Each structure stands twice: as C-alpha cells, then as structure tokens.
C-alpha cells in the first residue's frame, strides 16, 4: 500500500477518478438516470415465467395488468377503468381505459387483453400462475369474451374471492398485458412490449438492466402513485438497475454516489446509513412471515409441550428490536400486521415466560436432548433470528444446536420436511388466506407443509371461497387461535423493508409489498 504515497501516481489516480465522474456528470445533464442497486441479476424479461423477486421488480415497471395492488395491498383497477362483478361471482367485466398506448405506439384494446390472457392460459407459456386460473388451485376461467374494443369479460366456473388478488400478484408479473410484438415471428419471447411508464431498453447480464422513460405513457387520473396503480408517471429519462450481488459493495456504492437508491438494505446497515449526511432511509413493515418452523413428526418435537416451551422461551420484544433495529413489532400471527384482517384476536400471541417454558419442558420429560435448527447465511435476517433464538432458548434449558446450510440445501430440506427446526421466512402473501395456505396442508402429500390440521384446513377452504370480509375475519381469527394452540411453528414478525437513498432522490418510499416503485421518483440537480 505504501506505493500509493507516490504523489505522481496518486495524482494520476485522481485524474482518472475525476474523468470518470466527469463523464457521469455529463450524462446526468443531458439525460437523467436513476441508478438503483439490485442484489441479483434478473432471470428473464418475460412476466411471470422465468422469474424471481428482482425480475418481478424490473418487469412491473414495463408491463401493467388490468388490476393491481394499491398502497394498502387491496386490489384496484390499473389498465381497467372499472371492474364489475356479477352477483353470483362468476363473471368479471373489465372496462379498459381510453388512450392507453403500448411501447410500440399501438393503442390498447380488448383484443390484446384477450390475446395476452390466452397466451398465459396456454400451458406452453409456462406461466407460473396458471394453476390459479385453470381450476387446479382456484376457479377455472371458462371463457374470455370481448363484446367491444373497450370491454373484456372473464367467466369462471365457481366463485373465487381471490380472483382479482391472484391477477395482481407481483410474482405473476401482475398478469401484465402485452402487445403481440413481444414475441418473435416464431412465437418465441423477444422483449416485453407493454404499457408501463418505462420501456425495456437494454439488459447486460451480470451488469445492469436499463429501462427508458415511455414518452407516450398515459397516466391514470389520480393525484399520485397508489401502490402498483394510481398515477405512475416516470420522472427520469432512464432507469438503470445495477446488479450488485454483495450487500457491502452495494452500501459502498451508495456512499460513494455510484447508485442513487438501494431498495433493500439490512436493518444494521440502515442504522449506520441513516446517521450519514446525504443519505436517507425509508422504512416499511412488509407482509412476510418470519419465524421458526418445527417438524411436528419429529420424535422429540411432536410433543406440543416442547414446541410451546420454545415459544415461551423467546423474548419477542428484544429479539425483534435487535432484528429490525427497533423498526418492527413482534407478531405471532400468520396474518400480517399491515393486513386489514389484523385485529385484536391476531394480536394475542405467545407470552415470553421462561418459567412456563421450564415447567413445560419438565412436564414433557425433556432433559437437554439436542434439537438441531437449520439456518443459512444467504439471508442475514434468517440467520440472526436463528442465533438469537438459540441464545434465548438456552436460558430456559433448551439445547438448540445450529446447523448452517447453504440456502439451496436448506430449501431442499424444507421441501422434503427433513428437519427438526429451521429458521425460515415466507415471502409476502398479500391475502391472509394465501399466507395460511402456504403453511397448511397434508404432510403425507406435501411434506413441506408445516401445519397439518384437517379442521383448520376446512376453515381455510371456506375462507378462500367466501367473499364477505366480515365472515372471512371470523374464519381467520379462528385459524389464528388454533395455530397458537398447535404451535407448529413460531411466527416472530413480518419483517421490514428498508430503502436507503441519496438526498437527491425525491419521491421514493418503501411500502408493505416491498417491491421498489420508481415511477414518481425524480432526481434533484446537485
């Protein structure tokens, strides 16, 4: 390192640095570019097919569906101006907005909607959400008709309270409406031609994805953005998602003004970044389900008293404060705190009571047999949750041993149910019925399911069919109580998403759905 004391070398280094910055500054004058850090590359540019979280994030800036989630995670119209549901719940009539253009200049009509949906419903497309619409997971779409260019009617074979919610799921690509130009002549995928505020420009695998502002975007009439819908006007010329796999590098990039925004930083990084001049953070609770899973078939853990002892040994307040740096509250319920269904009943969770834990353990005849808990280092938050749980449970006489696995291996153990305990996190499900559904099921058929209780399963089936929210509330409350009783897992909290941004980035905020939205975001000239 001493070599750098050489003044002439240092000078030339500085010149190089300035030259680089100079180039960037010039670009910024001519063309505003918002640079956003992404933790991993996208998988494809095709909505809801070969995708992951980052793919969804990028693609939802390019395509739009008929409906989308609002800020409060309820569903509202997006490309549609109105949605009318028939009284029997079997027919959905979407009226399209006027003057919506695709990126290739074509005007949106019911024909493209029908074409897009028929493509999604074709098994060849491999749309990940097909099971929600072909009768396997929910209702089946029996017909899509277009009475006129502004109207599309979907007909179902049975009522489904989740129909619109499934349509707007981010992991389904929001069922984004595409122009047939998105495909090559041979029918293979080319690039998305959608109606979103940004059009797809360039993808350099491993480096960045660039989107360009869509000049003919027709924004909705609302005053501002509202979740994935509302007024989604783009305010920068270019959007550059930079792939930065390492969180520390990402942080360094933000500090040194190489990116403008990191949509997802860890709580401890946020703590540090917040204190620095020129950096702000935007925090929001999310709807993930984070906690400790038990294998209820395990010889030791099949005893509900041991599972409850673990639940009572954890100091939830202190743990969640440490995990989120004081940004989140504990929640022992599968109903996320931000959900409209989170009520007084759902707030009744486990009590931190080491004496009770010790009493239960004694009653169950537990004498320090080791319990192996799987954790991973890929997701820092899952790892920390495991470390803290182990330390706290130890105070009540529980002998939990951590086994750190690589994420891919842990996922396989999860899928096959081959574990005693694991620290795990379910990604956001925007409706409590979907949340419960991911936890519940018949273990002999689907070993990944954590909670196997036929009685609760019946309640869940009812909640999926039921459209009246008052009645659904009653069902969810019942299920929550049963789950606390059974303790097939200990849900600890719902996680937080923390965006970190430079002061020059205006108009960005995090929200419960977690995915960053970069329309309505502008860059102040420095």
């Amino acid at each position: 390192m001493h070599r750098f004391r050489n003044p002439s070398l240092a000078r030339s280094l500085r010149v190089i640095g300035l030259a680089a910055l100079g180039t960037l500054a010039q670009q910024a004058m001519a063309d505003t570019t918002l640079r956003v850090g992404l933790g991993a590359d996208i998988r494809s540019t095709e909505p809801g097919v070969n995708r992951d979280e980052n793919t969804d994030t990028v693609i939802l800036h390019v395509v739009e569906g008929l409906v989308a989630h609002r800020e409060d995670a309820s569903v509202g119209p997006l490309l549609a101006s109105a949605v009318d549901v028939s009284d029997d719940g079997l027919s959905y009539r979407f009226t399209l907005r006027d003057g919506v253009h695709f990126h290739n200049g074509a005007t949106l009509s019911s024909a493209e909607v029908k074409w897009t949906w028929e493509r999604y419903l074709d098994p060849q497309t491999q749309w990940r959400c097909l099971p929600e619409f072909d009768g396997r997971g929910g209702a089946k779409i029996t017909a899509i008709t277009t009475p006129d260019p502004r109207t599309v009617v979907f007909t179902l074979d049975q009522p489904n309270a989740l129909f619109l919610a499934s349509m707007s799921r981010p992991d389904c690509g929001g069922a984004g409406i595409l122009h047939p130009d998105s495909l090559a002549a041979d029918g293979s995928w080319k690039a998305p031609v959608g109606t979103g505020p940004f059009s797809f420009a360039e993808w350099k695998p491993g480096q960045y994805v660039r989107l360009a502002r869509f000049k003919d975007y027709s924004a909705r009439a609302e005053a501002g953005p509202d979740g994935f819908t509302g007024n989604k006007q783009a305010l920068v010329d270019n959007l550059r998602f930079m792939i930065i796999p390492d969180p520390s590098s990402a942080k360094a990039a933000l500090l040194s003004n190489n990116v403008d925004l990191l949509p997802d930083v860890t709580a401890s990084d946020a703590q540090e970044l917040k204190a620095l001049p020129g950096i702000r953070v935007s925090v929001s609770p999310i709807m993930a389900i984070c906690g400790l899973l038990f294998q209820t078939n395990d010889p030791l853990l099949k005893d509900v008293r041991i599972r409850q002892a673990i639940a009572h040994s954890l100091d939830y307040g202190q743990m969640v404060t440490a995990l989120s740096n004081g940004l989140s509250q504990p929640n022992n319920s599968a109903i996320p705190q931000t959900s409209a269904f989170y009520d007084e009943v759902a707030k009744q969770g486990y009590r931190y009571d080491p004496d009770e834990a010790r009493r239960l353990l004694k009653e169950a005849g537990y004498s320090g047999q080791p319990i192996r808990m799987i954790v991973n280092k890929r997701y820092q938050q899952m790892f920390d949750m495991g470390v803290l749980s182990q330390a706290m449970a130890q105070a009540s006489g529980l002998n939990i041993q951590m086994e750190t696995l690589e994420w891919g291996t842990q996922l396989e153990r999860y899928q096959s149910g081959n574990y005693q305990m694991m620290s795990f996190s379910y990604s956001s499900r925007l409706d409590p019925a979907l949340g419960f559904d991911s936890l519940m099921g018949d273990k002999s058929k689907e070993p990944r399911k954590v909670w196997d209780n036929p009685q609760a399963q019946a309640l869940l089936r009812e909640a999926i069919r039921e459209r009246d929210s008052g009645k659904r509330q009653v069902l969810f409350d019942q299920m929550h109580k049963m789950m606390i009783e059974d303790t097939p897992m200990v849900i600890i909290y719902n996680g937080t998403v923390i965006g970190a941004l430079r002061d020059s980035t205006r108009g960005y905020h995090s929200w419960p759905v977690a995915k960053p939205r970069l329309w309505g975001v502008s860059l102040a000239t420095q």
Partner: protein
Amino acid sequence: MSPKPSCAPLAAPAAAPRKAPRAWPPANALIGATLLMALILLALLGLLWTPFDPLRIDLLSRLQAPSAVHWLGTDEFGRDVFSRLLIGARTSLWISLLAVSCAVCAGTVIGMLAGYLRGWTDRLLMMFNDALLAFPGILMALGIMAIIGASQYGIVLALGIAYTPSVVRVVRGSVLSLRELEFIEASRVIGNSELYTMFRHIAPNCLAPLCVLATSMFGWALLSESALSFLGLGVPPPAATWGNMLASSRPYIASASWLGIFPGLFICLALLAINLFGDALRDRLDPRMRK
C-alpha cells in the same frame, strides 16, 4: 485466494548463503519462529481461558469499540472480539493443520504408489491427478463444502482433497528420481519386499520437499478458510474462526473497523510466520544445502 502453485518452492532451489554457514539462524527464521510460537501459545491460551464466553450474546452491548472491558471491542451480537480471536486461533490453526495432514497422508500414499509401481497404475493415477490439479482449488473446496455441508470437518476434508494433488505430484517426482538410486536397488537385491523398500527407504527421502510443501499448504489453508467464509461456505457461525470473523466483519468496515482489523491482522501474522518458517525450513532441508 487461490492456492499458490505447488512446485514453487521446489522448482527453484533455496536461497543459499554464499558465505560459510553462520552461527546464528538468519533473522527471518527467528522472526518466523517467534511469531509462530506466540500464535500457538495464543491458541493454547484460548483453550484454557478467555476473558468472556466467546459465544455469549449480549444484545445490549453490540458493536462496542475497544475499551477496558472489551479489549478488542464487541461484534454485532455483543460478543467479545478478543475472546473470539483466542478461540478462533485454535479453530483456524487446527483446521489448517488437519487439512494439511489429510492432504499429506493421502497424497503420499497415492504419490508413492504411482511413482513406485509406474506403468498403467501410474498413468491412470496421474491422469486423474492432473485433472484435479487443473481444477480451480477454491471451487473444488466450495463444491465439496456444498455437498457435505459446511462444518469444521467438512472444511478439513474439502481443503484436504483440494490439496492432495499437489502432494501426489511432489511425492511421485521424488520417488521417480529416488528409485533409480543405488541404495534402493540394493534394498531390492537383498530381498526386501517392495512395500518395505518403499516405506523404509523411499518415504523418508521424500520428507524434505514434503515439509516445505506442507508449510506453504498450511498458509493456503488459512487463506482458503477465510476465502470460503467470504464466499458463504466457511466454518459456520456461531463457531469462531479468524476467517469467518473477517468475512462477517465486512458490513462494518466503515462503522466498526475493529471487527475486521484484528482477525485480518492475525491471519497476516500467521501467514507471515508460516512463510518465514517455511523459508528457514527449506534452507535447512534442501539437500543441495547439505553438500
């Protein structure tokens, strides 16, 4: 860090003093030996005593800077860094030692077989060995860790396997050059079995190059352990090694620099000690030196 090429210390003969042998060992050997002793003592100390329980989590005193209570500060879980360094010394040095021993044992047996039996056995073994050598060591270790799961002994096995081919190369080379020598021939002529000849006469003579290789491998093992931790497949926490302490200090490089500085410094010192010690060993053992 990629393993440094194996034949480096051997391809080039030792630095030999031009003058007559001096009475005192050279300065670098002294420095190396002293450092090494100090580190081993530290590791032994860690076995007997640490100021705090290295695994005890104390959320109320997270990320504290070095102070009179916590000499080298605390980490993100409020654990005492000095205590973890002491425990980590033992784990890191032990892992490296075991990994090198595995490689040396396996490599010696395979190398001697290949070198002594020659013919098809040799050709087959060497083809396999060359393939392994061409395989990037750190990736091999990463793959093996992914298969058997990250644990202390997983890393020993992974590094052991990754380093075996270098040992095979060196041992086979020595055996090939030795077996034509007169005293080996003599041993065979007087009716000693092949096996006896091999272990009684050939093995001891491979010792010098092996010792030199083993010291450098010890250094690579220390480096690889930290590199594997850095890539996400090292010795799993909460156990402490210098490597995983250094790797997990990464997010705090700006805010809590002591978390990375001390383990990094210890890895550097250990490697410095090993390298200097290895140099001295090579000077002593190189047969050309004894002439």
